[in-house]
């Protein structure tokens, strides 16, 4: 069965994520982050940041909710049972800190087939409350047996 590529370019409703200090701490602890700028507001301020800093990979927390509806879009017909997360890229802009509000928009960047594998590539663009692009994510899912 060939992949269905008609959804390429489709854009989904943006999500808005309010970045909280305790969520950053919870995430930092889960990934073993020990840099105090992620945990201690005073250490963050002394280092020149407005509040505790989100580790760069915290992007999955604020951008993920925008990408999930795209992956589950029935128009895309992605077979989850045969899917693996094949690759991931993030390009970061200004750091995200507690108190920021991040708006993320997801699009279907590409759907293609090579050697029996389906490649479903989604892009997320996240901007802060000042309109600065804080992160651009490329999410590559590979489906076997398309």
């Amino acid at each position, binding site marked *: 069965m060939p992949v269905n590529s008609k959804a390429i370019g489709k854009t989904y409703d943006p999500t808005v994520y309010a970045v909280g200090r305790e*969520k950053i701490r*919870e*995430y930092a*602890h*889960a*990934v*073993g*982050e020990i*840099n105090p*700028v*992620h945990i201690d507001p005073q250490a963050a301020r002394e*280092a020149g940041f407005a509040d505790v*800093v*989100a*580790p*760069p*990979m915290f992007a*999955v*927390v604020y951008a*993920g*909710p925008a990408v999930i509806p795209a992956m589950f879009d029935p128009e895309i017909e992605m077979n989850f049972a045969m899917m*693996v*997360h*094949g*690759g*991931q*890229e*993030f*390009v*970061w802009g200004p*750091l995200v800190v507690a108190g920021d509000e991040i708006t993320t928009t997801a699009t279907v960047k590409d759907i293609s087939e090579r050697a029996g594998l389906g490649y479903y590539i989604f892009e997320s663009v996240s901007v802060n409350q000042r309109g600065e692009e804080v992160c651009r994510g*490329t999410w590559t899912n590979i489906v076997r047996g398309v």
Partner: protein
Amino acid sequence: MASLTPGDQIPELKITPDKYLTVRYAGASGDFNPIHIDEEFARAVGLPGRILHGLWTMAQVARAQTEAAGGPQHLRRLAVQFRGMGVPEQEVTVTGTVKEGGPAGRVLVETVAEQNGKQIIRNAEAELEL
């Protein structure tokens, strides 16, 4: 900050995810896919047991870069390929080699994450701004 000129290795990062790490990471990240948190479900779909979240392992690769560079503000880009699967309670090692740039400005690092001698993140490339 580590020396970052072509050929230099970034300091190796080693971490052993404990038995319940995947549960904490699921809560922290919002990814509750049962292959990461439910042993019976994972076995029922043909896995050896619960597996690590790929994005947790990617976070270890990111952390190796920010620790080498001196803080989160220096990591500008990270691209990875996930291969195989990581498991809890086994040590994960992140290594990397500077390919281009340095000691200041833009630095490109080729980096991987391994567990039990197998790469679970490969062909990863990090861009640092120093």
